[in-house]
């Protein structure tokens, strides 16, 4: 059941094509992330859905109604902005109540719904404060409450976590996930952070230079990136040359027509001579839960990640051997393209 349909959406600024003929269908209750580097057109797409940016061509259909040229006010969508965009001269309660006041909801009903929503985002104790008296995470919750209280058909989140520090960001990720589950609202989130997109979305839409290049669930996206760009942008990847093996499976080779990708955590480390490829550890980085090794091999410098399971880490300069399952190699390009 498609709830939001974006059909051949296109935005041109003069000669610049910010969004080129993008199509996407989102189901009711789904959490979809729009992932891409800055300038890829993801925010423009969100702003066209919200109605802040004029559509050049194409259609936006929400729940069967064509809203391509509707005014933002008449779309009734809940929007959370990167800067939070709270009204600085109003208390938290007034900020959240604003949308209901615009809908001419009765006073008692407004109070009830504002209280309910503030409780949902766990801000009921801060209702009388002003935005500047709140921390970044709390402001984020106010913005979320303000968007949710009008019971919009859909929630649009524009880089909602990028202004938070790392620890708070993770906390808010799960908070957004919890609230989205509780309310069951269809959500589209724009982000440039692949970890954010992977961790909380049902599906991820990747945009590159104004085009949608892959729409998949997070696991598929990570394991089967459809373009070389995605394999680098989502997670880390080693680029290798390869040939098509006899069994139809690609194989790593020093020279070959194929461009292959291999995730660092898919590579095992063993004593020298035991695996597929020998090398020497060039340097190592401690990431807390993992070790990241850079290993010099005859095929170039490869990244290898291994779990910090309490055993002693390998020393820099020590000789090792790399091993992997050929099934985990991904063919990025079958042609003669330089890596």
């Amino acid at each position, binding site marked *: 059941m498609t709830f939001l349909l974006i059909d051949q959406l296109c935005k041109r600024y003069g000669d610049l094509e910010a969004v080129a003929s993008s199509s996407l269908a989102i189901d009711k209750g789904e959490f979809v992330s729009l992932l891409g580097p800055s300038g890829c057109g993801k925010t423009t797409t969100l702003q066209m859905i919200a109605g802040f940016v004029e559509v050049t061509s194409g259609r936006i259909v929400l729940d069967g109604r064509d809203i391509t040229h509707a005014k933002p006010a008449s779309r009734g969508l809940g929007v959370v902005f990167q800067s939070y965009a*709270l*009204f600085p*001269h109003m208390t938290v309660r007034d900020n959240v109540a604003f949308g209901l006041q615009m809908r001419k909801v009765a006073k008692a009903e407004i109070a009830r719904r504002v209280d309910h929503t503030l409780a949902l985002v766990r801000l009921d104790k801060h209702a009388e404060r002003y935005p500047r008296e709140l921390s970044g995470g709390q402001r984020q919750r106010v913005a979320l409450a303000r968007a949710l209280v009008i019971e919009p058909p859909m929630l649009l989140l524009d880089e909602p976590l990028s202004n938070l520090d790392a620890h708070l960001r993770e906390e808010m990720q799960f908070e957004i996930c919890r609230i989205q589950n509780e309310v069951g609202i269809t959500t589209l989130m724009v982000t440039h952070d692949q970890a954010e997109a992977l961790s909380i979305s049902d599906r991820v839409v990747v945009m590159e230079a104004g085009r949608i290049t892959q729409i998949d669930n997070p696991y598929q996206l990570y394991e089967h990136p459809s373009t070389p760009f995605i394999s680098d942008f989502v997670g880390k990847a080693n680029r290798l040359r390869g040939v098509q093996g006899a069994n139809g499976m690609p194989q790593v080779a020093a020279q070959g027509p194929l461009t292959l990708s291999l995730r660092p955590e898919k590579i095992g480390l063993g004593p020298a001579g035991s695996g597929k490829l020998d090398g020497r550890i060039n340097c190592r980085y401690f990431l807390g839960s993992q070790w990241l090794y850079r290993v010099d091999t005859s095929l170039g410098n490869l990244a290898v990640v291994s779990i910090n399971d309490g055993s002693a880490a390998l020393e820099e300069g020590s000789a090792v051997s790399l091993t992997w399952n050929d099934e985990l190699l991904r063919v990025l390009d079958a042609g003669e393209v330089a890596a």
Partner: protein
Amino acid sequence: MNDAKPRNSAWGYGLSGPALALFLALLVLPLGLTLVLSFNQFDYTTGIQAGQYTLAHYLSLVTDSYYYEIFLRTFWISALVTLLCVLIGVPEALVLSRMGAPWRSIFLILVLTPLLISVVVRAFGWSLLLGADGLVNQAITALGGKPVKLLYTPFAVIIGLVHVMLPFMIIPVWTSLQKLDPAAEQAALSLGASQWTVFRRIVLPQIMPGVLSGTLIVFGLAASSFAIPGLLGGRRLKMVATMIYDQYLAELNWPMGATIAIVLLLINLLVMLSWNRLVERRYKRALGA
């Protein structure tokens, strides 16, 4: 650390010394002298009686309806000028802040250019336009109407003052508009507000500090303005500053002139402080200290 602090503050006083000296010599001292002068006895035949003091000037100011009328006129003209500056300046600043890249700076400079031309030149420009045989009246006669008396009326003074004061309203409002988050307006729109509601409930409350400083500057300058009322109001339509000038230079009654100047200063202060209190009390908590 402890002995560094007094040295630092001495250093601070030392640095602000020249400015303080200038301030004392050029503002506080003449003001003090004016205050003393306003209590000096005055006689039309013998002049100022040094060493003899009286409250007579203040008494005549309170009892004589002539002064009363001029003070009243000055304040209603200043209030009207301030209001007009708000009504013209706030929308103008809004339009300015929404303009594209090259036009914004071009129009901002256009707004500021009147400040580069002497008030006297501008006042003469207006009197050429508004005079009995000025451009406006020529146009009226050409269209078959009867000439209207424009110059030397409150109308001329108000037009001239609004023209001079507009930049002082636009600049503070424009500055506070720059601090607005454009996304807040989008947020309000997405929550169902109309453009007008966005302006009234989101934009206007946030630019109130700018409007407040604009009104304070404009009112203060208008109430004490001299050149515009002098040139466009003429000898008949007196305002307080031109009356002070007359007392000093025509009547040669310096103590009376000083008295009017002191009273103008006090009333101006009183009006501005209470206006500031009134508006700030309403917006202080919401807009932060």
